[in-house]
């Protein structure tokens, strides 16, 4: 018997898989468990193979698990006719057939016999026997039809799950009462109960095949995604203006903000394209309002020019880049970490920008707040780079993490009284871009203020904002803007965005960034349990790069494996560039097939390649050995 439940609900896009799994995860969280969800879906609105995994354990969970142990295969109501299977394959049985490879030995299969016919899957019976799977065939479709509507197959499936695993129905009922209008609540409750009873009548489930652990939280928890956390961080930091254009997965942050801003007296604008979106954020910020925009790879590409404008005019700006697999439109619903260089280097000229990469849902909230603070204190564009994985996965976080004071401070912006004391030109134009300022920041004014008149321009300019190609002024302005980065680096040092995990005196290291943090940490724990001494460092600040901390980490171990989701080892490249050394010590474990790492892949990759100098079988991940500097 396993000490964790990993429940996978599979079906077609549009079948309500996401909402059902979210409720289920929440019920488990409320019962005292730690939960983590992993979502897999195709770039299709209806139909196609999709699943969500809910992992639940009494101990903290930081990642999707290795495989899973409970399959609820609902059937894809939008599946195409198998006669047309040249392109889509036999979609009708996909919710069952596509999921068998990762189901653990001894696991449970519940399938909807109203929609799925296992005789169409070659070797189904043999595999069931071989793997000691427990199969429950339930005609959920007819059940749902009889009780009301076919779409309630989901609820029937949850009832079946509860009966098999021993989860009390009350836990789910309570949530349904919160989430559903009266009219559909009753039939749903009824159908869940009927399905629950049916299992007990037809099967002997006294000793559950897969049971649910029991757990207890010290404090109240909330179930959140990375996108929720980024949006709430922005709101708490006083952001009241967002402009955007939809693109997966950035749309999630954009949607959450748009739904909440009006009631907070804020403004949300869906505009004609991403150039406009970033330009609007700049316009609002120029007026003294905390503003943001963002996109995913292709849309972010369009923001390169406004980004440079924000740098040159020193307009505070927060941009979110939610990565997905590229190049071009790539794989819209699949995670990848390959936009790192894009975000670090896009736009022309010598660049002054900050890039933060949160690794967990809790960090996403912190990074979002930090991004606004840095952008407004230092008048510099600050970007949050995260990915489709962190954006959509749900996990429990103590509610108290979000219980913080709001902060709407707009940084170095002068009042009219202060403006009166500042240097002005002969005709009263304010010296907005003074050369001095130890940390590089020259205080700003806002249109409408008396005595603050100045020109913001993307051309090089003198202290009053007049366009200037004077060489001495150019050097002074450039040096000042660059000085901000040193000041920010010092500021960031104790920010908690550098996370070490594992024994401090470990022999080996794993270096990673962003959403791979949790998976790497699970792998590190397992490696240590198996006798390999290893620790991990997750870098959450990519620009300015925490060179000293990373150097100290690399120096403390013999060899380090860099884990990232892209094909060209961009993060390893960045580390080598910033450090100028350590090339012989850094090898890479890469994955770019559209699925995030599972802990076991890191364990295996590390053991085989780093510890044993062997070679990885299979083509899910790729190892790139160390090279000299």
């Amino acid at each position, binding site marked *: 018997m396993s000490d964790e439940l990993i429940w996978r609900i599979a079906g077609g896009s549009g079948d309500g898989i996401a909402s059902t799994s979210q409720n289920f995860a929440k019920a488990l969280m409320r019962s005292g468990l730690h939960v983590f969800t992993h979502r897999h879906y195709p770039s299709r609105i209806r139909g196609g193979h999709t699943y969500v995994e809910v992992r639940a354990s009494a101990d903290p969970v930081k990642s999707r698990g290795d495989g899973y142990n409970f399959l609820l295969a609902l059937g894809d109501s939008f599946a195409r006719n198998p006669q047309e299977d040249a392109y889509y394959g036999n979609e009708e049985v996909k919710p069952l057939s596509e999921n068998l490879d990762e189901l653990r030995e001894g696991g449970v299969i519940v399938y909807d016999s109203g929609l799925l016919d296992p005789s169409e899957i070659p070797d189904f019976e043999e595999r069931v026997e071989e793997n000691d799977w427990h199969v429950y065939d339930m005609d959920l479709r007819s059940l749902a039809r009889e009780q009301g509507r076919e779409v309630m197959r989901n609820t029937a499936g949850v009832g079946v799950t509860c009966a098999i695993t021993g989860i009390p129905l009350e836990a789910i009922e309570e949530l349904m009462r919160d989430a559903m209008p009266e009219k559909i609540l009753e039939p749903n409750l009824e159908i869940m109960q009927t399905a629950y009873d049916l299992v007990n009548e037809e099967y002997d489930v006294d000793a559950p095949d897969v049971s649910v652990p029991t757990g207890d939280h010290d404090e109240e*928890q909330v*179930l*959140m995604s990375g996108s929720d956390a980024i949006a*709430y961080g922005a*709101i*708490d930091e*006083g952001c*009241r*203006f967002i402009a955007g254009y939809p693109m997966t997965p950035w749309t999630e942050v954009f949607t959450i903000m748009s739904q*909440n801003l*009006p*009631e*907070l*007296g*804020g*403004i*949300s*604008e869906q*505009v*004609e394209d991403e*150039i*406009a979106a970033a*330009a609007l*954020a700049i*316009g*609002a910020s120029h*007026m*003294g*309002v905390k*503003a943001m925009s963002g996109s995913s790879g292709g849309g972010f590409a369009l923001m390169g*020019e*406004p980004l440079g*404008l924000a740098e040159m005019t020193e307009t505070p700006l927060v941009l979110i880049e939610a990565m997905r697999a590229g190049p071009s439109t790539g794989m819209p619903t699949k995670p990848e970490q390959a936009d790192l260089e894009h975000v670090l280097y896009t736009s022309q000229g010598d660049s002054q920008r900050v890039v933060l990469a949160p690794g967990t849902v809790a960090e996403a909230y912190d990074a979002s707040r930090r991004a606004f603070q840095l952008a407004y204190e230092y008048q510099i564009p600050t970007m949050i780079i995260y990915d489709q994985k962190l954006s959509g996965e749900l996990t429990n976080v103590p*509610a108290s993490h*979000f*219980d913080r*004071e*709001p902060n*709407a401070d707009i940084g170095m*912006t002068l009042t*009219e009284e202060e403006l009166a004391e500042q240097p002005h*030109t*002969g*005709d009263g*134009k304010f010296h907005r871009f003074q050369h001095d300022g130890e940390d590089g920041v020259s205080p700003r004014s806002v*249109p*409408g*203020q*008396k*005595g*603050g*008149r*100045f*020109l*913001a*321009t*993307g051309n090089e300019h003198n202290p009053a*904002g*007049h*366009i200037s190609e004077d060489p001495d002024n150019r050097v002074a302005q450039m040096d000042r803007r660059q000085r901000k980065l040193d000041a920010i680096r010092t500021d960031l040092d104790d920010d908690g965005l550098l996370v070490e995990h594992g024994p401090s005196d470990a022999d080996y290291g794993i270096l990673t960034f962003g959403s791979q943090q949790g998976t790497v940490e699970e792998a590190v724990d397992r490696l240590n349990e198996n006798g390999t001494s290893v620790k991990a460092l997750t870098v959450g600040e990519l620009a300015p790069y925490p060179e000293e901390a990373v150097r100290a980490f690399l120096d403390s171990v013999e060899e380090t494996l860099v884990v990232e989701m892209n094909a060209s080892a961009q993060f390893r490249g960045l580390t080598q560039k910033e450090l100028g050394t350590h090339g012989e010590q850094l090898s890479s474990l890469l994955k770019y097939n559209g699925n995030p790492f599972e802990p076991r892949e890191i364990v295996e990759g590390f053991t085989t390649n780093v510890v044993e100098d062997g070679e990885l079988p299979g083509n899910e991940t790729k190892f790139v050995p160390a090279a000299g500097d």
Partner: protein
Amino acid sequence: MSAFSAIGEEREIDRNEYTPDIEPQPTWCPGCGDFGVLKSLKGALPEVGRTPEETLLVTGIGCSGKLNSYLDSYGFHTIHGRSLPVARAAKLANPDVEVIAAGGDGDGYGIGGNHFMHTARENHDMTYIVFNNEIFGLTKGQTSPTSPKGHKSKTQPHGSAKTPIRPLSLSLTSGASFVARTAAVNPNQAQRILKEAMEHDGFAHVDFLTQCPTWNKDAKQYVPYTDINESDDYDFDPTNRADAQELMRETEDKLYEGEVLTGVYYRDDERPSYQQEKQNIGEMPDEPLAERYFDDDYEWERSYDSFIDKHK
């Protein structure tokens, strides 16, 4: 007290307040039509009662984009084609500031064409001045979206095969609630039109015919021209959309034949501005958003109080 005491100040405004008294003096070529825009704008702003400190001039890139180096107010010289989205947000963030966007025909009808269409459609309350010299000035004389068909330039040596864009018709069909054309050769009419544009509550588009003697020697100097609002030959009601449409079509056919009609072609004073529409549906705060950041007593809402229950 408001954090923006420059806003709404009532006093006599001298047009020279808009002239920066130090370098740079305008570096436009002698005879450039852009001087005419500067002059009429300097005349119109005091008439509207707007001081330099409550005015934000947002420009694009081009000879035209340099306007705000020579007009002393709050200014934002943005990037090529992007003045409108910056200006739009500035106005949303603080509707009390007078927001004017300006740029060339390449800037506004070419690279920024998409923004033009959408800003007009949304009817943002602002004035947009397009310096229409039928050429790319700053990059040295290439064909622009308003250059006449057959126009030869270094990048189109065999003459342009393209029909020029129709800015007035485009503006009208996109949804602008005020559409006018004026010319640098008559600063008095230009000043009057700019004043009306600024006073109009909605998107006011002024296609400003400016000559570029340096690169567009063939360009008509837009004289003689006819003021359609004054001339007895045009019995014409600018609030009538169909009339406006017809007249625009005629003008845009004839512009390159030397018959230049100027004036206010269309105005709809009934249509609410975008800000108003947004306020009506509850998506826009009553007070200027920008004010709130300077109000020490404002109680900032927290996500924890508002949304956290959803996640428990």
